């Protein structure tokens, strides 16, 4: 009975939060005299209305899934990775570099480019990991700093070595591209690409590492209780660094979604992409679980794409979606109290 209650809660909290978020969003529209009904109608249409929007929604969700996974993985291991944004940028650049400068058959080139992105992200994550493990430096502050370094460094590298007309790099070679004419065909020329497959694969990988392997066991143990882990002979420092590396790898992979999928090149970014920060919201709404994150990412991706139609059809500023998302996070976060209580005394609540 308790078990049912616990399980139910897991689903209930996010669902209720989303509904409440949309509800209050509607109220805000009412008081600022927009028509919520037509607005949300437009929003829905903007998400599912036609193949193009659907394609774009999925396209937008792919990097969100990965950045969500990155944040969640860190959360699960007791770390808060605000650095997804920076790890994403270096991953983006690395994948594009490989995409441009190598000449390989697709079967090798594409995986190579993706792995390069993941590796770069991992490297960017390792640095704060080491700083935390060895010097006890707060990972939140180092990852923030690393974000800025990534932003300016990638721009600097592009400008110095990879610049093409239009403030960007050259296009990657077709052999490294995730883009798929077929997918674009069936979605009326959206930018939908095979990245979604990569993202879902990554979600499976995270689930597997965390719950099925001894590595995951160690990572989670360290996340929950460093002293007990040490007592059990688990190398705490190593696992902190490893956790940041894996988290960073997911973030880097998110970058490849943009580099090899959506854009096929990297622009000089005047500001952060925001995908990294959205990842925090996604992982939270997804309760740090693989399936939840995929659903949450699709939701946020949909809201973002749908908001464009909401703007053009109902004239509601796209920012409203940002507000709704913020509200959703608040509700999910605040209901932690209840979930914590149920978990704590749930007979049979799994680890």
């Amino acid at each position, binding site marked *: 009975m308790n078990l049912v209650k616990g399980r139910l809660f897991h689903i209930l909290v996010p669902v209720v939060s989303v509904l409440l978020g949309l509800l209050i969003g509607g109220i805000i529209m009412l008081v600022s005299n927009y028509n919520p009904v037509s607005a949300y109608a437009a929003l829905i249409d903007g998400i599912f209305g036609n193949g*193009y929007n659907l394609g774009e929604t999925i396209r937008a969700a792919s990097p969100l899934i990965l950045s969500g996974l990155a944040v969640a993985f860190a959360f699960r291991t007791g770390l808060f990775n605000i650095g997804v944004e920076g790890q994403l940028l270096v991953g983006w650049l690395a994948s594009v570099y490989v995409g441009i400068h190598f000449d390989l058959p697709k079967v090798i080139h594409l995986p190579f480019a993706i792995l390069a992105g993941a590796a770069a992200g991992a490297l960017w994550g390792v640095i704060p990991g080491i700083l935390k493990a060895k010097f006890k430096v707060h990972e939140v502050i180092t990852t923030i700093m690393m974000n800025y370094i990534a932003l300016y460094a990638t721009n600097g590298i592009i400008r110095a070595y990879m610049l093409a007309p239009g403030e960007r790099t050259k296009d990657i070679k077709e052999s490294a591209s995730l883009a798929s004419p077929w997918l*674009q065909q069936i979605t009326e020329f959206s*930018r939908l690409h095979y990245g979604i497959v990569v993202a879902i694969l990554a979600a499976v990988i995270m689930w597997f590492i965390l719950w099925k392997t001894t590595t995951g066991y160690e990572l989670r143990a360290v996340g929950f209780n460093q002293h007990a882990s040490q007592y059990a002979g688990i190398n705490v420092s190593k696992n902190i660094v490893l956790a940041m590396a894996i988290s960073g790898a997911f973030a880097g992979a998110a970058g490849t979604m943009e580099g090899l999928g959506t854009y096929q090149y990297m*622009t000089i970014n005047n500001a952060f992409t925001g995908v990294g920060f959205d990842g925090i919201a996604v992982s939270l709404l997804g309760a740090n679980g693989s399936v939840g994150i995929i659903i949450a990412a699709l939701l946020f991706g949909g809201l973002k794409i749908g908001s464009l139609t909401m703007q053009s059809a109902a004239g509601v500023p796209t*920012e409203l979606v940002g507000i709704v998302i913020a509200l959703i996070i608040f509700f999910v976060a605040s209901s932690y109290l209840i979930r914590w209580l149920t978990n704590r005394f749930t007979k049979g609540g799994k680890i």
Partner: protein
Amino acid sequence: GKDDGGGSNADGKKDAFKVAMVTDTGGVDDKSFNQSAWEGLQKFGKDNDLKKGTGFKYLQSTSASDYAPNLNSLVRENYKLVYGIGFLMQQDIQKVAKQQPKAQLALVDSVVPEKNVASITFKEHEGSFLVGLIAGMQTKSNKVGFVGGVDSELIKKFENGFKAGVKTANPKAEIFVQYAGDFNKAEKGQAIANTFYGKGADIIYHAAGGTGKGVFTEAKNRSKNGEKVWVIGVDRDQHEEGMPEDVTLTSMVKRVDKAVEEVSKQTMDGKFPGGKTVEFGLDEDGVGIAPHKDNVSKDALAKVDEYKKKIQNGDITVPKTDKEYKTFESNMKK
């Protein structure tokens, strides 16, 4: 399908001419080219009594990844002409153009070699040359500065045109140049301006969007304290930004509005300049100095007119790139 988009549109007529634009993240009130593009579109709309929202409209992008969906949804809503504002949209315009051969697109500030895309560019260097002349004439300290947003091909046109102008009017003038690496960092603009003015410059020309705000801030502060320093605005007449301290010497205006209006007309008359590059320079009044001339001295204005002619007759060609500027400079020496 694509047709019902047209059929179900407000004024029913299937082939009613509809025109729209996609802004970059700046939005239609960025006090810059997005805004003047929208002004142009509105004027065109009024003149041909189109309804806002159905006859002509804009979509704002919240991030670079929105360009494509925005362009696309306008095309599928059957707009006969869709503008992309800003060179950042070049890639997306090209994609959409390829995917939707029937669509008619136009791109401002860059070139897309597709037969269903009209590319609109400006001779910013020529306009910058003119304000350069003014700066060269009116600097007391013989030191002037240029603040660029992001070091790029486009902004280089501003820089080199300006430098050429300054040197032409005042060969012994010293010119400081710095790029902020960012179009949206006011405090950087301010810090750079602070450095320039601190080093004795009394006129700064900025081509740095939001970063330029900082230049104005610094200039205002200094003129409050009795220093006589100037800013030269960009894209639109930035006289307002200079008030109340009145620090705007002049502005290099870039008539995106004219261009948009012009191209829209041509297209409506069935003369869509697809595959062509329409370049707006001094001849077409596409670029020039702001109407607000109170702070510009008589002989500076005379100089401007003199050289405007020279440029139009092709007596001199204004440099766009660093290389062209080098040769220009060496020719001057002789």
